[in-house]
């Protein structure tokens, strides 16, 4: 995935499609097969399986209260998968490009910078987490509930230290507000087709398949 604008456009449409109907969710899953590398990485992501049970709990509560919990679980499960897949395909700097393209070099730059720093922070926290686990393993400490507080404290502490370093760096470089950035996007045919498919999927999700056939007749 190269063109961040098309990707954002597709994700917005597919998210709506996924949310409103099972057909939309299933077609979104098929759409994700266009990007097998990122989909594979998303399916392997531990964070995905960490979040999925929360959707399951809500689905069970819905089922017990007489609503269609299973449908909710499938739709939300695929919606999460869509988020993880697209996130895997995101390159550093793309949010800044996209934000500047959308909102200009003042508000857009600030917003893009904030998003980039947040994503970088999530990425670093994930790496810190695995480093702390490695250190604990080496020291023979079993990572359990008892150690959760100290690990949490450590991760927040590391994040704050990095935030201070980043603030120092931005100050040193004279950052006050806004900045210059010349976003460049390259859309491939495959991406244009994928975006067109996303429009179709939303269309199918909005109007039930049966209705489309009735209209055609």
């Amino acid at each position, binding site marked *: 995935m190269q063109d961040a604008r098309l990707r954002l456009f597709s994700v917005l449409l597919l998210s709506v499609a996924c949310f409103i109907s099972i057909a939309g969710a299933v077609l979104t899953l098929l759409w994700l097969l266009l990007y097998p590398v990122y989909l594979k990485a998303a399916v392997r992501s531990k964070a995905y399986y960490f979040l999925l049970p929360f959707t399951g709990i809500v689905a069970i509560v819905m089922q017990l209260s007489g609503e269609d919990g299973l449908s909710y679980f499938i739709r939300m499960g695929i919606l999460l998968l869509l988020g993880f897949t697209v996130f895997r395909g995101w390159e550093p700097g793309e949010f800044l490009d996209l934000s500047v393209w959308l909102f200009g070099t003042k508000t857009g730059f600030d917003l893009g910078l904030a998003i980039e720093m947040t994503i970088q922070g999530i990425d670093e926290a994930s790496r810190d987490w695995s*480093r*702390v686990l*490695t*250190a*604990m*393993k*080496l*020291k*023979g*400490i079993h990572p359990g509930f008892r150690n959760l507080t*100290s*690990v949490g*404290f*450590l991760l927040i*502490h*590391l994040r704050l*230290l990095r935030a201070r370093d980043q603030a120092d760096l931005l100050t040193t470089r004279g950052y006050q507000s806004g900045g210059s950035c010349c976003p460049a996007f390259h859309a491939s045919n495959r991406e244009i087709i994928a975006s067109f498919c996303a429009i179709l999927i939303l269309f199918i999700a909005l109007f039930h398949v049966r209705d489309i056939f009735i209209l055609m007749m």
Partner: protein
Amino acid sequence: MKLILDGITVARGEWRCSADGTFLPGIHLVTGRVGSGKTTLARIMAGVLNPLSGQILREGISSCMLCQQFPEYHVTGPTLAKEAESYGIVAEKALDMAGLTGREEEDPFRLSRGELRRFQIACLSLRDWDLIVFDEPFSALDCKEKQKERRRISTLSSRIVIVFTHEQRYLPKTDYLWEMRDGVLSYLGTVPEALPFWETAPVHVRMLLEKGIIPANLTEEDLLEGLCRMQG
């Protein structure tokens, strides 16, 4: 007691690294250029990373430790005292050894990287390990501290000590020499016999070898003695 690497391979994209060999008790020096796979291999040896293929056999090894390249990766405690306790050692001893006496309640991340490195090596050397792997133990240290730490590593009571480094000057008293060559771990032999076959040998070692002088070992004292022999 021995560590056996049997057909170990690792791959990351186009990059590949492989290793075979037996590590007996003593000090092993593994050298190689930056990016040659030293850190990856160190992590595999310490059991924190799984190889793509092959197996690691740890015969008679019941305790193992890895001294990671960046000392902050080891921190799990909010204070230096807690950090020392996490290694199962007395905090005062480690702090004294690292020259940080009286700083028990200090946050480990407030230390400079060099101070944290000293503290980490002190914590590691206060326990006996069957296998200890050092990944670039001299990084972030000044010359004086490098000298101190290489002496400490030379006198460790741990059984199998493996030092991965591209340090050229301050090296511990070494028993066995290994080298990473084009992504393959090669055993060169015992020191000093293996020195003539060492491709990435430090410049002063190469200079001595060119003059036909083989130093007794790789410590500064041994190299100085070799230099004296050269001058007659």
